[in-house]
């Protein structure tokens, strides 16, 4: 059965949190509800589900790859043109360490950014109900429900004090 999304817009955080509770009473779970805001609210402000993220894994993977990238660039470059300068060995660690360090940091940062996008589910095609007034400070309560149940959810949100609702 197709999934429909219903969006209710609320003036303040308390109303939005109450609306979320009212939706849960219809048999839906917290996984079916999202709270859309134009800025970060303290975690749990709307009684929303706890989000588990694995972002910390990404910089480690990126850092390791970047470190080995740094080793490869420095060692292979030196071996490709083995010119002895200042009596130092061809594979001299102190100068290699600088590039390896930068490679490690670059890898860690690149992977962190990729991790943020991946974990945020971005890029994301906006097919669900959305209203531009969310960016004007209204709080959106987005509910995903099976087709046929959307009107019931719409009524629940309206009853909870939504200034407007949308179904998509």
């Amino acid at each position, binding site marked *: 059965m197709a999934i429909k999304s219903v969006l209710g817009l609320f003036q303040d955080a308390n109303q939005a949190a109450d609306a979320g509770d009212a939706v849960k009473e219809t048999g839906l779970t917290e996984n079916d509800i999202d709270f859309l805001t134009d800025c970060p609210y303290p*975690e749990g402000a709307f009684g929303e589900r706890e989000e588990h993220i694995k*972002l910390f894994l990404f910089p480690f993977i990126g850092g390791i790859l970047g470190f080995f990238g740094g080793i490869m660039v420095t060692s292979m470059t030196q071996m490709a043109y083995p010119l002895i300068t200042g009596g130092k060995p061809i594979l001299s660690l102190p100068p290699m360490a600088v590039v390896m360090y930068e490679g490690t940091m670059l890898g860690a940062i*690149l992977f962190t950014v990729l991790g943020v996008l991946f*974990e945020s589910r971005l890029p994301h095609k906006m097919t669900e109900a959305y209203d*531009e007034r*969310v960016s004007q400070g209204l709080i959106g309560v987005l509910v995903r429900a099976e087709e046929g149940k959307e009107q019931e959810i719409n009524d629940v949100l309206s009853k909870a004090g939504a200034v407007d609702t949308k179904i998509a």
Partner: protein
Amino acid sequence: MQEGRVLPPEQINKDLLNSIMSTPKWYWPAVGICSLIVLIAATIVGYMINKGLGITGLNRPVMWGFFITNFVFWIGISHAGVMLSAILRLAKAEWRRPASRAAEVLTIFSLMTAMTMPIIHTGRPWRSLYWFFPYDFARGIFPNIRSPLVWDPSAILTYLTSSVLFVFIALIPDFAILRDNTTGLRKKIYTALSMGWQGNARQWKLQIVAGILLSALILPVFVSVHSIVSWDFGMAVSVKAWHSTVFAPYFVVGAVHSGVSAVIFVLILLRQAYGWQDYIRREHVEALCRLLIVVSTGWFYYFCMEIIFGIYGREADEVAIRTLQFTLYPWNWIMIIFIVTTYFLPILLWSRKVWRRNLLIVSIACISVNIGMWLERYILFVPGQINKQLFTFTWANYTPTIFEGIIVLGTFALVTLLLLLFSKVMPLIPLYDIKEGDILKTEVQIGRRTVPATFRED
């Protein structure tokens, strides 16, 4: 902070997007003037490529002059972004909010500008590729990894890439606000840039965690960049007086000093130009000035150490260079102007609360710091090369030409132009950060006083 008033979100959108939604009368003339200066400088660069470095004052033994001075200066300015954004974010300083984006953007543009300087300085820019790119473009020759001139591009490119990504991640929610507030082609562009951002709890949580994580990752890069820039000099065996062991921290603290001063000046300009009095408040400027008192005093300590380390060993070359810097014209005058403008004048102007809250006085102090910091690099690099050394048989003083002066001026116009163009398409103050600050703000009653307070999550 104490003086802010809580504004409704629509008002914040209207105020902070006014640089994008409307065009003040001064905007296009300012863009025009900056573009003209950049164009003239670019033409001179073209002329220099055609005629050779002979049109500059560079000659043996002074091969690093205005261009390299300017390169280090702009690298220094770029340190403001991480200092303000990352350190203050990790320290959970509330007053960072309006300053963070402008600082990060200034970092990017000053880094980009800095990178042009050594490339122009080579005289034949296309040959720069041979020098740092790990590929044999000619005759099977690969770059020499043992040279600091190879470490430098690797550090700067890492810092630039990191800074761009740092800004981009923080811009996504603001792109969504722009998507919701624009129409036509602009809406399509912002829709693509916002990548379907909804603003749900998961996305916000990741935005906050990413801010902290990226700050923590960029900080070591920030320290490494100017340290490595200092090694360009510290590891040049042939030039005396460039081997001080305090060069790395001296350069890093100096960079923060000039960079944060530049950010304060940019913030004051933005406040006046776009009427952002409610966002960039006098208390923010004052807080930044107090920070700078500490930073500049730290910088002055390293400056003294650098001089003391130089003369304490009584090496003939070191003493000769210090004599040149402190007693011989024109270096002695440059030294005096540099010390006064970098430390004593700004410290005096930041010494009283009323002066720290006076935007004109603060602007003068910040410009003064940057004049001084530019001269600091100049007086650090050039006298070392002028000093007579063994096995060098060509002697000449260094007198910069008008061409070098215009190219340096062009870099200032370029950074200003890029900032102006950025302000036309993207918000220079992060909207969500300001709104979050307002949400977390409250007032508490303590005895008979009602005082502002801020809720803070761990």
